């Protein structure tokens, strides 16, 4: 009995959570993307001509970011990769 009650309770909680989260999923995804874009710009700042005192550290991150780079530079209005040696398209 109590187990049934618990499962009903869990179902209700799950439903409510979906009801809370779903309408704004897209807004959140966009906000996250904007933040990641900013981060990407920091990582690539040397290549974009902005001096970056932490370039040693960001350079290490570059391989991690490559997957997302193509979509990123397209979103920023650059038809080609901003880094000469790294072409993704």
């Amino acid at each position: 009995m109590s187990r049934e009650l618990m499962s009903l309770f869990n179902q209700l909680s799950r439903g409510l959570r979906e009801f809370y989260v779903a309408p704004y999923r897209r807004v959140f995804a966009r906000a996250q993307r904007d933040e990641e874009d900013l981060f990407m710009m920091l990582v690539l700042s040397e290549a974009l001509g902005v001096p970056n005192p932490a370039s040693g550290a960001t350079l290490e991150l570059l391989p991690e970011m490559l997957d997302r780079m193509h979509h990123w530079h397209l979103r920023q209005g650059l038809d080609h990769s901003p880094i000469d040696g790294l072409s993704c398209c």
Partner: protein
Amino acid sequence: MDAPNSLVLAIIGVAMMLAGYFLYSKFLAKKVYKLNAEFKTPSHEFSDGVDFVPTNKYILWGHHFTSVAGAAPIVGPAVAVIWGWFPAFLWVTLGTVFLAGMHDLGAMWASVRNKGQSIGTLSGRYIGARGRNLFLVVIFLLLLMVVAAFAVVISGLLVDQPGAVIPTWGALVVALLVGQAIYRLKWNLLAVTVAGVIALYALILLGDRYPVELPESILGMSPQGFWIITLFVYAAIASVLPVWVLLQPRDYINGIQLFIGLGILYGSVMLATPTLVAPAWNDNVPADTPSIVPLLFVTIACGAISGFHGTVSSGTSSKQLARETDARFVGYFGAVGEGLLALGAIIACAAGFRTLADWEAVYDSFSSGGVGVFVQGGGAIVNNGLGIPESLSATILATMAVLFAATTMDTGVRLKRYVVQEIGQLAGFRLGTVSATLITVVIALALTFSQGGDGSGGMLIWPLFGTTNQLLAALTLSIVTIMLIRKGRPYLPVLLPAAFVMIMAGSAAVVQLGGFYRDGEWLLLAIDVVIIIAAVWVMVESIIAMGQAFKEKKEPEDDELLTEDQKFPLDTT
């Protein structure tokens, strides 16, 4: 004949809408839209965890219903009861069954069969590039008017029901706290929900005890003017805040509140069984009341048929539909939910008074109807039914209506900001969030105050808003008709309502033109002219596109085209 009892009316109305759901929507699903449970919906095909997410149909219905239902299905009927309760009742029930349900379901189907694209994109595809521009024009006007009309509705309520002032603004604090509790403190949502609703009702009690009445003149403005300015400042700030801070928790609490409010309203009608004191047909309408045809059909838009629903159906709901057959419940029954709200509003405004003379004293002019009457009449019914003191009942309903309208208003400002930015981009400007919001608010304020410093003539906008809304519905229905003609399916269940709505909206726009000219409402006149041009445009474009669709070779039926790849086996979830 004795005046009929409102309980009888409620039962007949609910029975009609349920019959519509069980019978007519079944016919539509089988013969017209031919919904197929095996069809792989966009939510599965493009599943991305963001826009395209297969969702349980009951939860999706909850979303869909709370996104489409707001203050509009209350305001419209509350104005339209001036012609008597019977025409309003007929339009709401028959409209819900044969128009709104069909329209919402049709828009959802059209989108699901087109990769979840929105009606805006579909109008480009089925009517041509001009169709897409047309859609932008109509949406721009719709958002402009909804923001202005609701600012007037809310400020009027805050002046009439000073008890609602504390809960209205306090609800924002509750929403802020709910947002913090969920995202920062990660509390259990169910507990937070219960606490949030209790806090809201505690605020209502508090507000009822300590009504806030503004002085005659505040900062050189009338109280109503002051509230309008305050509301726009609020809406501007709310629309640029991160959504999790305010908009998301507030939408959520309002969604819950919608169900509680419907329960209170129908529960009271069942217990109080008030008599319909208003006349069935009002032969004795005030002198300034326009002719019932075509104005009734644009005064009640939401609750009978509303083009705005099509943008929700095709914009978000269609991307979350787990099975195509779920569209019948989500789309059609979503419209039924809104019809129920409109029916409740009719009963509140027709039965919430003691005598016919009382009722006539309230409806003494076309502009006196509106949400204030709903609060007054509904408050009396809740008082009788549940025994809650009359002023407290009125405060509850007023708070409910204000919260709905405010939600629509700041969402409207937010959406309009995007439209302004898009227009700016077309014109070669890059507008930031703040400047675009400022432009949006200034345009809407200009419209709100164009009818006087206190926004007293604000309800003038209402029928024009309804007209635009119906125009959008007609555009959506034309697209659905074109799709059906191309497939060689029965199209009359869609085309006939589309033609009806188009004719009513078009002639209402022309009738209003004369009124605005007489009253010297030049801004509204200009908007009306744009609407008429858009209406003619919609009609011409869709007739051309339909003619072409007739001539073209028929597309094969969907089921024949369905490849194994597009199938989604019935036993998977």
